[in-house]
C-alpha cells in the first residue's frame, strides 16, 4: 500500500479479504479488517495530526511556559495550562468550522457550517482539476495561475458585458473556464511538443499570471473609474452567483456547481472513453502509445481539462464570494487544491469531503485566531501532517501497532 495516493492505483481492491486462519473467529476477523482498513488509518492520521498540533499549541502558550518555570514544584499546573490552551483552541476551531454552540439562535449556530461550505467550494473544484492531471500522470502545480486567469476573465465579462440575468452568470463562468483551460493548455502543449516538464512550466506560469493580474488592476478596463486602488469594478448583479440559502449565509450556487463538477469528473474518469485514455496514459505512457493513443494529444487534453476546472474555481470564487478582483483574489486556492486532491486520493467523492474538511479548517482557523489568538498557520501544519500520515499508512500502523492488511503482506509494488 505504498502508493495509495498515486493515480495509478486509483481502483484499489475494495477491502482486504478475510484471513485464512481458521482459528480466528468472525468477530476477531471483523476487528482485524476494520483496524487495518484505509478509513481507520485516515481517522488515526487525524488523531496523530491533532496531537502533534496540540503539542505545538501548548508549547508556545504563554500560560504553559509560565507554569513550566515551576514545573518540578507543581507539575500538574503545566499540564492543566496545556490542557486549557489546547482544548480552548480546538473547541474554537470546531465552533468556527461546524457548529457554534454558544450562539443565541440556531440560525447563527449553523452559520460556521455554511462558511465552511463557502470556503470549500473553490477548493473542491480546483482540486478536481489537480486530480484529473494526477490520474493522467501529470503534476499540475499551476492551479494558482489558472485560478487567477479564470477569475480575471470572468470578472471582466461580469462587469462589462450587458447580458440578461441567468445568461450573464453562465457566460462569465464559461469565460473563467476558458481562461483556465488556456493557461493550463500552455503547459500541456509545451510538455507535448518539447518535453518541457509540466511542474516547472506550471510553477513559472503562476508567477506570470500574478504579474498579469497586477497589470490588469492598473488598466482602465478593470479599475474602478477615478480610484487608484488596485481593485476592479464590482461584477454586475446579473452575473453574480445567486445565494443558496438566502441572505443570512454566504453560500452560493457555486456549491452546487462544485457537486456537479465532482459528478462530472467521476463520469469523465470512470465512465467516458477519453477518461479511460487519460488514465491509461497516466498508468503507462509507453503501453498507451503502443495501443495507438496519441500521448501528445492526450497530454494537451488533460492539461486543458485540469486548467478548465481550476479556472472554473476562480470564476466561482469571484462571481460568488468576492465579486470584484483584487491581487489577493486567488488566496492560496491553487496550492491548497493540491493537498486537497492528495487527501481525497484523487477521487471525486474523497475530494468533496477533503475540500469540506479543508474549508472547515480554514474557516475554523480564522475563528480560532480571533477568539484564542492561536495563529491560523497551525492549520497548515495540521493539513500537512494529515496528508503525510495518510500517504504513509504503514507508518500509522507501526505507531498504533495495527496489523497490516493482507494486500500489503503480499508486497505491494511501487
Amino acid at each position, binding site marked *: 500500500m*505504498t*502508493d495509495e*495516493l*498515486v493515480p*495509478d492505483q486509483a481502483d484499489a481492491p475494495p477491502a482486504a479479504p478475510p484471513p485464512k486462519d481458521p482459528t480466528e473467529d468472525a468477530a476477531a476477523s471483523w476487528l482485524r479488517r476494520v483496524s487495518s482498513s484505509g478509513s481507520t488509518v485516515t481517522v488515526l492520521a487525524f488523531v496523530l495530526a491533532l496531537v502533534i498540533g496540540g503539542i*505545538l499549541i501548548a508549547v*508556545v502558550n504563554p500560560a504553559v511556559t509560565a507554569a513550566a518555570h515551576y514545573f518540578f514544584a507543581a507539575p500538574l499546573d503545566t499540564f492543566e495550562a496545556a490542557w486549557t490552551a489546547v482544548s480552548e483552541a480546538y473547541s474554537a476551531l470546531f465552533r468556527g468550522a461546524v457548529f457554534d454552540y454558544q450562539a443565541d439562535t440556531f440560525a447563527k449556530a449553523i452559520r460556521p457550517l455554511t462558511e465552511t461550505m463557502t470556503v470549500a467550494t473553490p477548493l473542491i473544484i480546483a482540486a478536481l482539476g489537480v486530480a484529473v492531471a494526477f490520474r493522467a*500522470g501529470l*503534476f499540475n*502545480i499551476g492551479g494558482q495561475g489558472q485560478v487567477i486567469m479564470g477569475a480575471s476573465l470572468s470578472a471582466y465579462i461580469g462587469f462589462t458585458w450587458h447580458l440578461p440575468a441567468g445568461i450573464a452568470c453562465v457566460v462569465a463562468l464559461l469565460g473563467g473556464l476558458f481562461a483556465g483551460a488556456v493557461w493550463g493548455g500552455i503547459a500541456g502543449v*509545451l*510538455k*507535448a511538443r*518539447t*518535453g*518541457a*516538464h509540466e*511542474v*516547472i*512550466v506550471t*510553477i*513559472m*506560469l503562476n*508567477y*506570470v499570471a500574478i*504579474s*498579469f493580474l*497586477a*497589470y490588469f488592476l*492598473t488598466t482602465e478596463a478593470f479599475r474602478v473609474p477615478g480610484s487608484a486602488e488596485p481593485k476592479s469594478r464590482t461584477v454586475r448583479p446579473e452575473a453574480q452567483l445567486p445565494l443558496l440559502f438566502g441572505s443570512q449565509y454566504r453560500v452560493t450556487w457555486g456549491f452546487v456547481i462544485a457537486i456537479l463538477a465532482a459528478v462530472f469528473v467521476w463520469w469523465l474518469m470512470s465512465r467516458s472513453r477519453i477518461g479511460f485514455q487519460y488514465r491509461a496514459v*497516466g498508468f503507462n*505512457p509507453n503501453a498507451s*502509445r503502443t495501443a495507438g493513443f*496519441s*500521448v*501528445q494529444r492526450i*497530454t494537451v487534453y488533460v492539461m486543458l481539462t485540469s486548467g478548465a476546472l481550476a479556472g472554473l474555481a476562480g470564476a466561482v470564487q469571484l462571481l460568488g464570494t468576492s465579486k470584484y478582483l483584487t491581487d489577493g483574489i486567488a488566496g492560496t486556492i491553487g*496550492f491548497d487544491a*493540491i*493537498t486537497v486532491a*492528495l487527501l481525497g486520493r484523487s477521487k471525486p467523492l474523497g475530494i468533496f469531503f477533503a475540500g469540506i474538511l479543508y474549508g472547515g479548517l480554514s474557516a475554523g482557523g480564522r475563528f480560532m485566531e480571533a477568539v484564542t489568538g492561536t*495563529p491560523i*498557520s*497551525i*492549520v*497548515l*501544519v*495540521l*493539513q*500537512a*501532517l494529515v*496528508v*503525510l500520515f495518510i*500517504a*504513509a499508512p*504503514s*507508518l500509522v500502523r507501526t505507531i498504533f501497532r495495527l496489523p497490516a492488511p493482507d494486500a500489503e503482506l503480499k*508486497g505491494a*509494488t*511501487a
Partner: protein
Amino acid sequence: MSTVIEDRPVADAPVMSARPALRVPITLGVLGVIALLAFGLGSDSGMDSTFNLSFRTDVVQLPDLVVPTKGTCLVLSLLCLGIAAYSYFLATRLRKTPMWLTALYGVAWVFAFLVWAIEGKSTSLVDLLQGSLLLAVPIAFGAFGGVFCERSGVVNIAIEGQLLAGAFAAAVVASVTDSVYLGLLAAPVAGWLLGLLLALFTVKYAVNQIIVGVVLNVLAVGLTSFLFAAVLKPNAETLNTPPLLQPIAIPVLSKIPVLGPVLFRQTIIVYAMYVMVVVLTLALFRTRWGLRVRAVGEHPEAADTVGIQVNRTRWRNVMWGSATAGFGGAFFTVGYIGAFGPEMSGGKGYIALAAMILGRWTPIGSLGAALLFGFATKLVSALSVLGTPVPSQFLQMLPYLLTIFAVAGFVGRVRGPAAAGVPYLKG
C-alpha cells in the same frame, strides 16, 4: 510513477532522427531579428548609454563606460545574427551549436537590450552584477541540494521548505546566541531535519516523492509562520534581530577592476557557494562516491547487484542535499535581510528546482542557471527604477518567461537521472 521528474518528452517521434535539429538556429535567428529591429534600428542615433564601473563607496573610481546607443546595438545584434547563421550552418551538417557560442549569443543579446533600455541614461554595471550574484545565492544552494538528491534518485520538491527552515533557524539561533556563525550552523541542521522526513517517507515508506515534497513545503511554511506569529513576533528583540554577516574582502583578488569587488568582497556564504560548486562537481564526476551515487540514480538494480546499498546511499544524499538547501536559506536572514519574515523564501526553492533542470543536473550548470535568473530579476528591478516604456508588470514576468523559454527551447529533450522519482524496493 514513471512520469514524475524526468525530462523525457512524451513525443511519439523516435529518438534517432536524420532531420537537422533546427529549433536552436531558428530561435536564435528570430531573437536576433528582434534585436536588430527593436534595439538596433529602433533607437535614436546620437544618443549615448552610460555604465558606471565602480561602487560609489569605492576609493578608486573607474571612469564611466559611455557607448553610442545605436551603433553598439547594431553591432551586437548583427553579431547575434551571425551566430544564428553559423548555428544554422552547423545544424544542416547535423552538428550541435557549441555551448560557449550560445552563451556568447546570450551575453551579446542581453547587452544589446541593456544598451537600448538605458538609452540616454546611466546605470551601474557593478551594482547590476553584484545584485545578480546575491539573488542567485539561495537559488544556487537550493539547486545544489536538488542535485544531491536527484542524482541519487530522489526528487526534492521540498527545497522551498528547506530554504525557509534554514532561514528561520539561522535567524533565531543567531539572535539568541548573538553569533552569526552559530546561526550559519543552525541553518543546515534545520534543512537536515526536513530532509530526515523526506527520506523517511520517500526512501523507507516509498511514498510518492513529489507528494511528500509538496506536503513538506506546506509543513515548513505552516511551522515557521506559526512559530513566527506565536513566538518571534512578541519577542522580536531577543529572538528575531540576528546580527548580519559582514563581507570579507579577499586580498589581491578583490582589487581586480569591476569584477574584483563584485566577486571577492562578499560574505562567507557567497564564498561557500564558490567552494561548493567546485567540490560538488569534482565529487560527483571524479570520485568513486560520485560514480556510486550516479549509478544509484540511473539504475538502482544494477547498482544493487554490484553491492552498492541503494537506499543507504539515497538516505545519505537526501540528508546532504537538504542540509545544503537549508544552509542556502541562511542567506535570506543572516546573509542579507536580517530578521525572519513569514514565507520569506518567496518561491525561490521552486526556481532552484528549475535552475537544476536548466543546468542539466550538474552543479556548474545549476550555478549558471541561478546566475541567469538572478541577473534577470536584478535587471528588472534596475529597469523599473530607470523607467521604461514597457509596464513594470511585464518586466517582472521576464525571469519566469525566460525559464519557460529555456526549459521548452533548449533543455526540453535533456534527461535527468533515470530512476529519479522511483522508490527502490528490493525484492
